[in-house]
């Protein structure tokens, strides 16, 4: 994105109708200047030219002028009509979904975006799209109002419980763009967002087929933890912490609500991600949403690897092979991901 050492006046133009919105914006700025300068100049000119020369003077009386009133009623009206028409045309482009667009389904939820591609890939707080393809979002929410907003594309739309709303765009430039929730939705409203990745078609195809990167599982896990899944928004320290700190817990005993204790091994971590409310650590609220169906088994393994790496002596303590996949019937059969154990000492 933009560098931080200068003040950008405009966000990047990255969709087909971004230039139209910007054009309308420039037109309105010109109209504003064309009104402001003469009026401000007149105010200053009159204030100086006709300044008081004698206390309580009574300058010549002046009544209104029908001609002037008519002129300065009609001119703003005509100009405002051009603005109205321009705005209406751009709006029509923004909200008339095209034929043959690539469909993405969006579900808003306090405080994350859950997206799914037509081909089945799920994403959280991220959207990967190819450049130059029309994309149509079909959106709803599980709880309160949200608003899917991408400033670089100059578009947004509210997401309303109980009904579907739609948004479409065609990205024109590869890059990484902010995704915001623009409708106030409660506690972590400002944390509900992420990035839209616009990729070349080839990269997008690669991404779709799953070979996203050459990251090690710990790196991939950190990426998932801090960015993609947003675990860090609750599990990192600081004012927004609402979940347990995960540093140094691996293979240590944790106390659960109800008094039981359990060893935080791979199985426990995995279970906590998929069924968070089944084993709540003492002192925390059962607020974590389930990630079942949102993380692939690969990602799950990477996460376990990353959380393990937060415990310095985990390498020694956890030399045994984790049993995550074998003991969970929900795991897909053909999972050939690298075992976390292989990377636990990185």
């Amino acid at each position: 994105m933009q560098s931080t050492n200068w003040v950008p006046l405009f966000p990047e133009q990255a969709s087909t109708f971004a230039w139209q919105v910007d054009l309308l914006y420039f037109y309105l700025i010109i109209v504003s200047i064309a009104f402001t300068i003469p009026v401000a100049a007149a105010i200053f000119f009159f204030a100086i030219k006709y300044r008081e020369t004698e206390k309580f003077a009574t300058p010549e009386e002046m009544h209104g002028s029908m001609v002037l009133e008519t002129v300065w009623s009609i001119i703003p009206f005509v100009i405002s009509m051009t603005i109205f028409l321009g705005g209406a045309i751009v709006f029509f482009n923004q909200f008339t979904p095209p034929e043959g667009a690539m469909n993405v389904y969006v579900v808003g939820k306090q405080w994350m975006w859950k997206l799914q591609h037509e081909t089945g890939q799920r994403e959280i707080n991220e959207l990967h799209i190819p450049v130059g393809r029309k994309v149509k979002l079909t959106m709803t929410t599980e709880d309160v109002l949200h608003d899917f907003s991408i400033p670089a594309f100059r578009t947004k739309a509210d997401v309303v419980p109980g009904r579907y709303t739609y948004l479409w765009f065609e990205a024109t430039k590869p890059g990484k763009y902010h995704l915001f929730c623009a409708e106030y939705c409660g506690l972590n409203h400002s944390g509900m967002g992420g990035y839209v990745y616009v990729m070349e078609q080839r990269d997008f195809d690669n991404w779709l087929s799953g070979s996203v990167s050459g990251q090690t599982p710990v790196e991939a896990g950190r990426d998932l933890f801090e960015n993609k899944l947003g675990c860090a928004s609750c599990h990192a320290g600081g004012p927004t912490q609402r979940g347990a700190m995960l540093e140094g817990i691996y293979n240590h005993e944790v106390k659960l609500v109800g008094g039981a204790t359990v060893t935080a091994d791979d199985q426990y971590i995995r279970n906590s991600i998929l069924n968070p409310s089944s084993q709540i650590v003492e002192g925390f609220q059962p607020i974590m949403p389930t990630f079942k169906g949102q993380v692939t088994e690969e990602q799950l393994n990477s996460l376990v690897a990353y959380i393990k790496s937060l415990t310095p002596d985990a390498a020694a303590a956890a030399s045994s092979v984790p049993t995550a996949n074998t003991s969970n019937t929900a795991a897909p059969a053909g999972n050939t991901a690298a075992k976390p154990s292989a990377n636990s000492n990185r």
Partner: protein
Amino acid sequence: MNAENVISSGYGGSKLNYITNGSTLKSWLLTKDHKRIAIMYLISVSGFFLMGGLYAATIRLELLTPASDLLESGTYNKVFTQHGILMIFFFLIPSIPAVLGNFLLPIMIGAKDLALPRINLLSLYFYWIGGGMTLFALMQGGIDTGWTFYTPYSTTFSNSFVMLVGLGIFVNGFSSILTGLNFIVTIHTMRAPGMTWFRMPLFVWAHYATSLVMILGTPVIAITILLLALERLGGVGIFDPAIGGDPILFQHLFWFYSHPAVYIMILPGMGVISELISNFSRKKIFGYEFIAFSSIAIAVFGFLVWGHHMFVSGQSIYAGLVFSFLTMVVAVPSAIKMFNWTATMYKGSVSYDTPMLYAIGFMGLFLIGGLTGLFLGAMGLVVHLTDTYFVVAHFHYVMVGGQVIAYLGGIHYWWPKMTGRMYSEFWGKISAMLVFVGFNLTFFPQFILGYQGMPRRYASYPEEFQVLNIFSTAGASVLGIGLLMPAVYLMHSLFFGRPAGDNPWMHPGLEWRTSSPPPTENFEVMPVVTWEAYEFGEESGMDIEAARRREAVIT
């Protein structure tokens, strides 16, 4: 108090004025005198303004850095919600009508009091009860729904004191309704002999238009908030999407009031500015009828544009088109006012007293506020701009740059009438300029932030927005000092200010023809109006030579 009676046809001259006429607590709390009620409103409204201002300062401090480090986001949400609720419902809406309107409207039309003085007192008590409930809720833990109370967050998901605050606003709404009702009745029936409709000051016209909005709009928000409270109480209701209810219906009902409500806030401000520009140019206002009827036009059209708050909420494109068109239409009467004010200064005799500085500041800021309103009425653009800081900046340009500055200008202008004392002109000018500079520094960067896409109501934001946020916070500190200064020198003037005399500005209006402060019944004898509004010459019976002599003695 009456240093020198400079008006040959003055109606004042009483031994007792409304302040000295009775000093017990009861004589204040059970008064039927519109002036005492206005003073009690002034004190209460100032308290709410101070609280709202402290919340605003907290918001700006938090936004100094991208992370949510000063406040956690839960607290931040409460802070901006409470800032909005206190400022809008307990300051912006009541301030000019209930303080300046209450005090001046009957005097300006030559009445002894408002037509329904007990109703007026009742409105003050509604305001206090509503305000008290809200303050109690804030002390219990506050509210975090945003001042817009959007469902279903406010009905089902928020764990804060929505019901109590809602009921507070419900009760407070009746204060607004009763004030509006009283003004309409008073303007219809209480005008002095000779005070025809087109001799009324434009301040009174503006209040007439405002009162129409108060009576037609406020009941709708009252029932909406009541439904919201009932829905929270019962755990079920018509805004609940889980049973097939409609959360968008809430937005329609809410904005049906809350858009006209911004005209409740700004129209009286425009009335004040009409008085100030005319007085300090010493010239009859240009296009009197056009300003008067543009107020009424704004009030009427204001009821037809609520949907422009909902362009991206899923309403149909065609509904959007109609609302966008009407929004553009509403811009025209505001433009007419702007041009007429400017034309009033032409060939006038312009002096730069503190109220005039505020009035000129108003014209500049309202110009920007109004024009950026066009940005937000153009549908294609508003999709990008809505829910960003552009909206925040626009709203504050109209509300602070418009309403608050007009209110301060009005308070300064009529301070000698209300208290009989003159404030320090030197400090007044300094504070007016600080407010202007501080305000622009605070809110202009937010337009740019908005176009960059920074969403509103964010406790933390991406780093690239920080530079402009620092500007904004720096400006806010200047603005804060500028706004605190009047509190000091106005209080000081109460005890040490020089006596102002009955008509320090030599204005022909009726409020300047009684003593300062006015007697309880406003006029010793029933005034008879024989002059047009804003006739500054000797023919309206003012002894201008005597005033000049007095002025020469002072300076």
